Structures are given as C-alpha cells and as structure tokens.
C-alpha cells in the first residue's frame, strides 16, 4: 500500500517534470533554467552527494538531459530532402539517443545500489559439499599450481571440499590430433598436470572432445562430480582463504539461490593502466562494474555470473542441463536462463580472488571482442527485454548489460561526425551558435556530472570514453559480424600472462595512428575554415572544439597502444610474516615486507647477513596460516639492498614441488583484506574539474609518448597468435 502510494507519487512527479520539459519554451528560458539547475547540481555536489540528495541531483540532471533530447528531436535534424545532410545527421542523432537511453538504463540500475553486505550468514550446520572447478586450456602448470593451491587452502569443513582441474588442453581429441607436435605437447601437458594434481591433492579431469569450449568443459566437470555447490575459478584466479565462508552461507538462506558472485580483483594492470601508469592511482576499469553496477543489479536480483569467482547451485544448473553453451559468454547466458526460471542471485562486494588480466593491448582486445560478441549473441538469442520469466527490472538490467556493447557504433560516429563538417561542409546538426551553447554545453556538463554522481569513486571523468574509444576500432567489426551471423563467433581463450620485455607499439596500434593523423587534418581544416570562411567562424569553432576533444582521446589511445616494458611481473602487496632464511648453511630470522605471486621481499633481522651476492639460492620458511607438510620455499636472491634498519632481499620463488605452490598461495592469497585496502586507496572521487584537467594532462603526455614510440621505435610486433586473438 505504502509502496503503491510512493510509486504513484513518483509517477506524478515524473509526469510533472516531463510536462515542464516538453513545454516549447524559449531559448532564453532554457538557458536560465539550465544554468540554475546545473548550479543546483554543483551545489549539491559540494554539500551532500549521498542518499536522497544524490537522487535529487540525478533528477535535476535528468531534466537537462531530457530538455536536450526534446530540443535535439524537435529542432536540430537536417531537412529530409537534403539527404547528404540528413542521413549522417540521423545517424548522429540515433547515436546520441542510444547514449541517452543507456544513461537512463544505467540510472535505473545504479540509482540506489545495494550497500555492501555487512557479514556473510554462517555456514549451515551440515555444510554443503563443494566442488571447485578450475577450467584450463593452455595455462602454465606453475600458474595452475598457484590457483589450485589457493583453492585447496580455502577454509571449509574437512572432507566437504573437492578441487577439480578441468583440463581442455589435454583432451583425447588434442592428444590424438593429426598435428604430431601438438599432440605430443597435449599428452605431455596431461601427464604433467595429472602429476601436479596428484601432488596437491585435487582431481584432474579431462574429456574426449573439446565441444562447447568452456561451458562444455564445466559441464564435463558437473558430470564427473556430485557436490551440492559448484565454485568456478579461472585458471589465473586464486581465491583467498575466506572465499567459501563469505559466500556459502547465502545458499542456506535461500533455497532458490543459484549464484553468489564475487568481484574479480586483478593484481596486474591492464594495458591502459600499464601504459598510462595509472594502476596505482586510478580505480581499475572493472571496478565500476564490480564496485557499483553489480551492486545495482543485485538490488533488482539481476546480478549475473561472470565466469569465475562465483558459487553456483548444482540443482539449479541441472534444471538447464548445466552451463549454457550457445553463446560464447556462457556465464551471462547461464545466469539469464536461470533468472528467467525463477532462481535468484546474490552479489558479494568483497574481492575474494586475485587474478591476472590481459597484459597486452592485443589480448585485451581479444578478451573484449569475446565479451562483446557474446553479449550480442545473448541480445539476439535471448532478447532480454522480452524474455518471459524475467521481472521487469531484470529485463532492464540485462538489456542494459547487453546493449552496452553497441558502444563501438556510437563512439565511432562521434569520432567521424565533426569531420563531415570540417572536411565536406555538411551541416548534420542544425543549430545556431547560441542554441549550441545553451543546449549542448549544459547537456555535456550535466552528463559529466551525472557520471560523476553515479560512478565518481569508481571512475575518473573521461576514462570511460577512453576505454570505449580504444576498443571501438576493433569491436565494431566484431559486433557487426555477430549481428550479421550470430552463430559464427567461437570461444577464444584470453591470453593473460605474456612477456612484455621491450617497448614497442602494439601490433594492433596502426589504426590509432591513422585516426590520429586524420583528426589532426581535421584541426588543420578547422583552421583553414576559420581563415577562409570567417562568417562561419562560430560553427567552425564549435565543431573544431569537438574534433579536438576527439583528438585528445585519440592521443591518449596512442599512449595505450605504445606498450611499456613491464618492470615487475605482478603486483606486490604488503604482507608481514615472520620466518627464517637459510642460505649456504647460515640461517637468520626474517620478516616479509611484501609479496607477489612471483617473489617476496624480506628483511633480514640479523647482522650476519651484511652482503649476499645476487643470484645466490636459499630457502625461506614462514609461518603459514594452514598446516603444511613442509614449510621451506626455495628462492633465488634477485636483488639486495641495505637501509639503516638492515638488509632487504628481493627473492624470486623457485618452486619445484606442489607444496611450494601451496606455500606461495598461502603467502600471497590468504588475506583478502589487503586487496580491499588496495582498492580503497584508489577509490577517490576527484571531481569533474580536476578529473578533466588530469585527463588533459594525460592526453598531452601520452600523445607525445605515442608519437615518439611511433617515430623512434617503429616496430609492429608480428605476433600471429595475438592477431588471431583479436579477430
């Protein structure tokens, strides 16, 4: 009853706002009202950008956006009989409408995200049996050893947890392949992994044929196991010890719960973060998704499976014959299918796994192509907006997630649109200078502010646009190919740990340099038009400004495709553990300073170790959080330094035994709190103005860096494998 009255009040308020907005008021009135509304938004930002105030600010922003839509629709489209203006004008208009539509969908999703769940419900008295699936295709055994060890180390009642390695690289099909070399490599891989699993104490599973890629592999796991709950970890996603205790309890609360999803936390930078050097300071790209969108989806019971770091219920999966394999994003597809049949999901906003993400631009594009194509397949096969069984909010949520991947069309339209005027003089946006200032400017300011209100702590201004821009060039053909032939794309495994030894330009970098050159010509055209057609100067300047914005974006992209050599393989986290080191028969007490999956920095607490030659080998042992059969870990000293407190050694692990992997996992992954702390340190809302200035600085610097790579080090790597990944 109360809810109904609130809905009626909301509908009434909406009707009033829409009525006010669609009044054909004068330009002057819009200008004044717009200024006042924007002013109110700014004021609220300074006062209280939370709770009801946040929604009021978003309401104000909505008004300006709708005013823009109304104006754009009623007075800016070129006349139909001038097709050369009208067609590009219409495309630009549709692109803007898409953007605004997505803005409203996101508003719906994240208007009031569910707050982080305080503490997990306790495990049921009779703890459900859990099968952990680690699907693998071509990952290195060392990497798998870490992941499996971390999985085995998770806190859970004894005997109720089984870890399965699902190997698709050693299937019968692969082992008996016609290519002799590949077949023998597959057989060798199978043997090696079987030994690893035996050593660690987990199950090795493989299958006859590589059907349905990852979904088929997981289904094979389902067929060969019997646990109540299924946990999926990607091969490079190592869980923290608390993973199960933070998630399993929810299944006891809700018998219709099919999924508990947790965020993916990455300990290495993506190519943009690495090449722009923003990893330490700026929230990662996926934090916007896992930090706020998934929480928003969770409010509407629409949080979906992201392929890893999640717990699923076997009985639910059985109703749909396991994981869906029709699209190449089996995760989201499985989730939408189960949501549509009345199952629920929960999202736990705590990083409980640490993983690797694609390091090079090429593999990054490869991964995103898969996501984009898969989501397009879901859009085509499942039509989320019309899918029966889903609630209306769920439909909106899934539509929002799937439609998002149409952004390449829009980004590229925005990129090209100003050039229509600058190069060809086509007027695809009919507006006078004052109108442009009054409507477009207020709209852009409001758009930036709304993004900041929605995602402020999780995303810096202009960074979304940059990410979209760098993907668009390659995602556009990928998305088009799905739209033309939905069944065509097949699953390709994303390469994640790649060597980045030298500075080079990515093999996918060339188009960005071409775009940059064309946009630079656009700047020249702006200048030329201003000089030769002074009577059009105001239009030219407005369009030229837009082109310069694109140029800044393209300049940033040059920096992204100019790959820096990576200094340290993986991110280090501060971990303090006591232990001792023994080298050449000498032992000394130590304390660890920081830890990564590759190595550890230790401080020697004894005067005896004044110097140690780099390269000397020894063994380190630590106190571990779970009992280990042995606790000595072989290391090699990679560097050595002294400060006033003593000697600090940088050591690289030299694991030779599965137990060593378990020690490393225990060292690196036992405590999820440090990951949260790391994320929290990056989550600063820097505000629109400072963020924009900062973006400008990045853009100028990255442009020059990209150009210097281009002219100084013109070397396009010709890695065929990576190129295939991007197709």
């Amino acid at each position, binding site marked *: 009853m*109360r*809810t109904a009255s*609130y*809905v009626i*009040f*909301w509908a*009434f*308020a*909406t009707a*009033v*706002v829409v*009525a*006010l907005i669609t*009044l*054909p*008021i*004068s*330009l*002057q*009135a819009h*200008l*004044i*009202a717009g200024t*006042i*509304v924007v002013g*109110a938004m700014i004021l609220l930002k300074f006062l209280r950008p939370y709770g*009801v*105030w946040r*929604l*009021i*600010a*978003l*309401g*104000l922003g*909505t*008004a300006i956006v709708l005013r823009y839509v109304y104006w754009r629709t009623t*007075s800016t489209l070129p*006349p139909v*009989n*001038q097709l050369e203006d009208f067609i590009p004008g219409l495309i630009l208009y549709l692109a803007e409408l898409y953007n605004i539509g997505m803005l409203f969908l996101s508003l719906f999703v994240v*208007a*009031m995200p*569910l*707050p982080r*769940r*305080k503490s997990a419900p306790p495990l049921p008295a009779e703890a459900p049996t859990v099968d952990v699936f680690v699907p693998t295709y071509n990952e290195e055994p060392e990497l798998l050893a870490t992941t499996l060890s971390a999985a085995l180390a998770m806190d859970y009642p004894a005997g109720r947890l089984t870890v399965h390695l699902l190997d698709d690289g050693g299937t019968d099909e692969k082992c008996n392949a016609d290519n002799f070399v590949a077949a023998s490599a597959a057989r060798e891989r199978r043997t090696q992994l079987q030994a690893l699993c035996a050593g660690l104490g987990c199950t090795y599973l493989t299958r006859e044929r590589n059907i349905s890629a990852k979904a088929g592999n997981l289904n094979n796991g389902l067929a060969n196991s019997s646990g109540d709950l299924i946990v999926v970890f990607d091969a490079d996603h190592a869980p923290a010890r608390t993973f199960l205790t933070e998630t399993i309890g929810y299944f006891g609360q809700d018998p219709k719960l099919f999924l508990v999803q947790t965020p993916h936390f990455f300990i290495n930078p993506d190519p943009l973060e690495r090449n722009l050097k923003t990893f330490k300071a700026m929230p990662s790209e996926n934090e916007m998704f896992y930090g706020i969108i998934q929480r928003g989806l*969770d*409010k*509407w*019971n629409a949080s979906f499976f992201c392929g890893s770091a999640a717990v699923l219920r076997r009985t639910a999966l059985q109703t749909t014959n396991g994981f869906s394999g029709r699209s190449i994003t089996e995760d989201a597809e499985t989730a939408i299918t189960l949501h549509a049949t009345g199952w629920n999901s929960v999202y736990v906003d705590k990083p409980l796994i640490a993983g690797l993400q694609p390091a090079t631009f090429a593999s990054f594009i490869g991964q995103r192509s898969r996501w984009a194509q898969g989501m397009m397949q879901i859009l085509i096969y499942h039509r989320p907006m019309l899918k029966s069984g889903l609630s209306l*909010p769920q439909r909106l949520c899934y539509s929002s997630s799937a439609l998002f991947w149409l952004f390449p069309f829009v980004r590229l339209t925005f990129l090209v649109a100003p050039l229509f005027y600058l190069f060809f003089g086509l007027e695809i946006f009919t507006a*006078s*200078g*004052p109108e442009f*200032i*009054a409507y477009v400017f207020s709209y852009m300011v409001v758009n930036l502010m709304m993004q900041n209100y929605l995602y402020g702590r999780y995303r810096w201004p202009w960074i979304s646009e940059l990410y979209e821009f760098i993907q668009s060039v390659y995602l556009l053909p990928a998305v088009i190919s799905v739209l033309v032939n939905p069944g065509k794309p097949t699953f390709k495994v994303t390469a994640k740990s790649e060597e980045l030894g030298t500075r080079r330009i990515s093999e996918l970098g060339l188009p960005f340099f071409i775009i940059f050159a064309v946009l630079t010509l656009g700047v020249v055209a702006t200048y030329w038009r201003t000089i030769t*057609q*002074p*009577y*059009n100067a105001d239009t030219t300047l407005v369009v030229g400004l837009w082109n310069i914005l694109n140029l800044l974006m393209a300049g940033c992209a040059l920096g992204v495709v100019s790959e820096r050599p990576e200094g340290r393989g993986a991110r280090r986290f501060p971990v303090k553990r006591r232990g001792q080191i023994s080298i050449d028969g000498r032992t000394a007490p130590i304390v660890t300073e920081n830890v990564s999956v590759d190595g550890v920095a230790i401080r020697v607490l004894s005067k005896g170790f004044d110097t140690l030659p780099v390269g000397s080998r020894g063994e380190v042992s630590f106190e571990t959080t779970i009992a280990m059969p042995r606790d000595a870990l072989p290391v090699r000293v990679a560097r050595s330094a002294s400060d006033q407190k003593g000697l600090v050694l940088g050591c690289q692990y030299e694991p030779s035994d599965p137990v060593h992997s378990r020690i490393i996992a225990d060292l690196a992954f036992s405590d999820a709190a440090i990951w949260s702390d790391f994320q929290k340190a990056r989550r600063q809302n820097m505000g629109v103005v400072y963020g924009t200035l900062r973006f400008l600085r990045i853009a100028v610097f990255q442009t020059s860096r990209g150009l210097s790579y281009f002219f100084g080090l013109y070397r396009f790597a010709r890695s065929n494998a990576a190129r295939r990944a991007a197709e």
Partner: protein
Amino acid sequence: MSARFLPILAAAALLPMSGLRAQEAQPREPAPFMIAPPAQQPTAPGPAERKPAEPAPATPAIPASFAFKPLLPAARVTLEGESDTRSWAFYLTQDEAGADLNLDIAFQNALVVMPEASRLTVRINGERIMESPIASSDSLRRNSTAIRKGLLRAGQNTIRFEAVQRHRTDCTVASTYELWTRIDGAGTRLSFKNPAQQSRLRSIDDLPAVGADESGQTTIHIVAPGAASAVAANSILAVAQGVALRGRYSQTTVRISERLPDRIRPGMLTVLLGTGKELRDLIGTLPAEAGTGSFIGFAAHPKFGPAALLVTGETWQDLEAIIAKLLTGPVSRPTNINRKTMGTASWHVPDAPFISDSQVLRFSELGIPTQESSGRRMRVRAVVAMPGDFYANAYGEATLYLDGAYSEILPGDSHIEIFVNGNVAATVPLNTTSGGLFQQTPITIPLRHFRPGINEIWFEAVTPAKSDLACGPGATLPGKNRFALFDTTALAIPNFAKIGVSPNLAAVAGTGFPYSITSQIALLVGRLDIPNLSAAATLLARLAQRADRPLPVDVIGSAAAIGSRPALIVGAAGQMPAGLLPRVGIADTVRSTWPQRADAVVIVPETEGTAVFDAVINRFQGRQTTPEDSGGVAPSTEAVRDRWRGSFGGLFARYFISLDRWLQRTFDLSFAQLRTPSRAPSLYEPAEGAELIAAQASDPDTRQVWTAFVVRQEEALEKNLDRLVTPGNWAGMAGKLTAFRSGQDNHVLSADSTAFVMTRPFSLANMRLVLANWMSSNIGIYALTLLAACIGLGIGTFLMLRRLGRHS
C-alpha cells in the same frame, strides 16, 4: 539574434503601410504623433512637394461631381530599393467603370537613381498601363494615360506600381537604401474626361467607391440634426461603424454635425441620419426614394448633391432596426467564427490571411510571385494577420520553407534576412561562392515580433557579387540574375498559444480585442456633445474595421452605468469624472494639471537627405539598438544609458556588464529580465509633450477591460482622435498605456501584471502552449518550478526505490 534592428527598416516597418506618409519611410523620422499646427508646417525646411495632410484649399467645391478620383491609400507611397512593388485595390461604381478615364501619375525620385536603368511600371488589373523611366529627381513628374475601355470594372480593381531602380554610381548594398521613388497622392488619380459621367452611388454596396482624398483619408460626415440627444448616439455610432466596415476604407474619419457640410470633397461621404421629421426640418422635403417609412440608401437632393446616404425612420427605434437590418447586419460576424482574412485591400492586396491556427501559407497565396533579381538586395513583402488572443511572443517559432536559388555571390556579406514588423527575425548566411539551391530549406522565425492584427514580414536577399567590388562603369546596370525566389516558398505557422491578455493595447489596435468578442460594450464619453461623439465614432469606426464586425456599443452617461461590461472611454482630460482615470492607471490630478501645460514645441524632422545618409552610416557601423526603440529615434534612451553604464564601475562591475552585453547580444537576454517587476501600482503622469493617452486596465470589481483614450485639451479632441487612427500611430499602441507625444517617441508602459482572458473552449494542448509562453516570459518561475519538480522527482525516486527491489 533577433535583437538586431536596423533603424532604416524599422521606421518604415512600424507602419504597416510604410508609404502612408512619405516622411515615415525616412529613418530618422520618429513615428510621431504629429500634432503640429498646420501653420507651422511651411516653416519646415522640407522638400517642396511636402504638403500638409489637409486637402488643398484650392479644391473647388463642386456640389455635383468631381473631375478626378484619388487613388493612393496615403499622401505618398514610396517605392524603395532596387526593386519594389506595391499594389492595392480601389473601387468604382458602375458609372465610373464605364466612363472615359485617364490615369494620372505623379512621382519624384532620389537623385542617385540612374534613369537609364530605372523604370516605373503601373498596372491596373494586371494590364500594363504605363511605363516610364524614373528620371525626375528635381520635381514631380506627371504622366497621364488613357485607360482602355473595359479594363476597369465595377467594384474592386487593383493597381500595381513596380519600380526597378539602379544607383548611378554605387554598387554597394548600402547604396540600395538611397534609391526611392515617391508616388504623390495629390497627382495620382483617375481623371474623368467628362465629369458629367461621374460617380453616382446607387446602393449600399457602392460604399467602397467613395474612395479617399489625396492623403488617403475618407471622411464620413454624419449629418444628424438630433445628434445632441442621447437617443441618437447609438444609431450614429452604429452607422459610423457600418459605413466604415462596408466601405473598407484605409483611414476613416467621422465628423458629426447638425448641419449640412459646406462643401463636398472627393473621399467624403455625407450621411443624413435622423427621424423623418428631423430630416424634413433640415432639408425640406425628403427625396422620393426615402418615402415616408424607414429607409437606408443613396439619394440625390439639391441641398446635398447627387449622392448622400440617407438613413431615416419614423422613430429612433425604427432607425435602429433598419440600421441593424440593412447596414450592420450583413457584416456582423458572429464572435465565435474566425475570419479567414483581414481586410488590407485598400493598401495591400491580397488581403492578409488571418491565422488562427496552424497554417501553411505559400508565397503565391501571399501575393508574392516567382521572381528573379539581378540586384544586390531583393525584398518582398508579405502581410499576415494574427488573432487578438495571439500569445506566442515569448516562445513561438514559425518556419519559412524556402524555395530559391542564388548564383555567384560574395560569401560573408551575402545573406537572407527575414524581418517581422521591422525587426530582424532570422538571418541565413549565403556561403557557397558558386551559388546554391534552396529546396524547402527551413528557416526558423521567432514569433517574438508578431502582434495581434496585421503583421508585415519582409524577406530580403542581400547578394553582393564580386563585380560589385570593382564597380566599373555600368556595373550597376541589371546583369546576371543573382537570386531567384519561387512562389512555392511557404510560411508555416505552427499551432500557437491563444489566450487573451489584459491589459494589452496592441491587441486593441490589432483586432479590437477584447471588444471584438464581447456582446455589449459600454461607451463613456467625456461629455455627450458633438465633438466627443465624433471622436468616439472615429475610434469605433477604426475598431470595427480591425474587429471586422460592428461593435455593440451602448453610450452611457456616467461611470456608474458601466456595470459588468467592458468599457471604452473617450474624452478630454478635463471632462473625465473624478476617480475614473486612476482606474485605468492615470493619475487623477491629470484632469486639472495636464490641460494647463504649455503646448509642446514641435520638433521638426530633419531633412530627408541627411536622414538617409545617417541611416546608411548607422548600418555600416552596425549600431544596434533594442526593439523597444522601434520608434526609430536614435540614439535612444536605452542606448545612451547603456553607454553610460558601461563607463563606470570597477573591474568586476565591468566584467558583469560585458557579460550582460554578451548575453544580450547572443541570447537576447539580460539580467534585467530576471528582476521581479515591482508590484507597486504607480499612476501615470503624462510626460512632456504628451497629447493623447491610451490606457487600459481591468476593473478590479468586474474584471472587465476598460480602455480610455484621453486627450489633453477639449479643443483638440477630434483632431487627436483622427491622428490616433492613422495607421502609423494606431499600430504604435502597446502595453498597458501609450502616451502619444507631439514630434517625439510614443511613450509605452508595458503591463506589469496581466490577467488572462479565456477566448476559446478549454483545451489541454492550448493551455500547454499558453504555459510555454508564460514560462518563457517568466523565466525565473520556470526555473524554480523545474527545480521544485526535479526535487520532487528525486525524493519520489528515493522513496520508491527504498521500497522496491532488495534492500539490505
């Protein structure tokens, strides 16, 4: 953008008929309320042909018939620029159409007009009658041509003047403003070879054939022996309105007397009005046609010549009945039926379409044919009419779908401009050096400068070419066509907000609104005497023409009798009863102080030559003024104040001022607009030189509109009302109060609080548009409402989302 305003155009455009009085086409000339005594006129250092509006005293008093019939709707009609066209209608009786007639034309032109390349063409009913080089800069040139028999017809005929003019030496666009040819009202006429064949008005339908005098004015002389009696007043006013409506005259003056006029002039109609007994007392026996009962019709009589309109009946009731039946009845349009056109034929054909709803008007319907121009500046004119409850100034936009083409031009200097009532409403640059084609290209025209009633829209294509830069010998001669305008071009007016606003004198002037839609109007005159009645009749004749229906007036003796009717008040200040003037916003003390003031010194307009020159300079310097200055007086008070304002203050203040100016320039917006108007009612004290005040207010008790026309001195009552109804002054009425000053700007007070008058059945769509206009003129309220609504939406969303979906 539309704030741009060119004095030269505005001065002319202020008057729907820019040629009405020749001097008004001149830029430096205010649109004055000239109350200069005729005696002063000769002292003006004006050109020789300037004549007072008074008919030449030399006109012989021919009681029977006249040898000529003036044709112009005004004392002068000016054709301006490189090409200009004017056409209007004149009316002939059966006798006149069949007579042997000559067309006499008299004109004079600017010195700079090149005779070899400039021609004046006159057409009657589409047939070319006369073509003459324009080569008479030093004196009036007179031409005369016989009109072919059969060309003229009884009833409406059209005459059309077309001028093509080229400058002798100058190729600039600015020079085209120096080109003018002035058609003289006194010398342009139909002359009868045989005066005996002349005019004989036979039926009431012949009323338009009365025509006008040399200055375009028609005088209705109502001879009513019983005029002084209260019972006669309503009939007199009804006759005045009926005759003016059915005669379709461009300017009507009503004179009432108890005796027959001394002489009869062209453009003068004598109406004998009275009971049979009264008339018999006046002229002896009545003509045979009048018989003994009620009669309306033309009759001849030795005492008043061949054609006077006789309106008689046995009693006043009979009289009223027959007036209603035969004179006013046929033109009494029901208030709920919209007219399709507004009569402008006497000065512009075709009649202005009356736009009461969304409508698309092709140029062909507006009388603009497909045409090509080889000149630098091409201008065409369209006239449209808006209803009295037009309420879309603040938000509305019309669209011109242009079909046209242009050839090689100089980009940057070339543009199309649309003027509405003399204000720039839209500018479209022509940018393609090699020319271009417009195919239904939309041009947005804000409705800001539209007003109820007649609106004049100019379409101007300015197309200088490269050859104009060199301007070699003969370069000004007509050459290659530069601009083509097709008659498929269309003006689309969207559905606009319609609601009456009071006070709004512009609506009274435009369509007689709100009197045009009321069923009973109380008329209060200062004193029930003949001058007052004449003045009221003149006013009502004008109102009836604008309203397109006779207004049902009831003459009353005191303000108390007004009751709950809308009221019109006419009189001299001294005659007004105490306490009446404050009710329309004028100070009560005015009654005694105002008439005592010394006569204002009349400022004589400057000579035309310098005026044109200044206008050109102004145009070059881009001196821009605000639309409020449309009086055309430069520099205006606003401009001077602005200049002074800019020279004071510290750095911050100057930035503020320059920001304000930028906003003004770019958005036509000023901080002043955000100020809330002071609600303190202040009563108007006439400014220096004010001779007539028109003031309107809603009566607080009855919520009915009262409009008062108050003249300073009793003696000048009729004369000042005559002045008021001349098109130039009439169109100047606006706001809640307009003070007409001799030789100076009108003083217009805009309404500080207005009330709405519902004029149509309630409809949501219309109310939305009304709201849009109101919000657009009350921007602050719009902003606050929007703000409040958004806050409501935010709170609503918060409350709703807290209950919907999951909440932890």
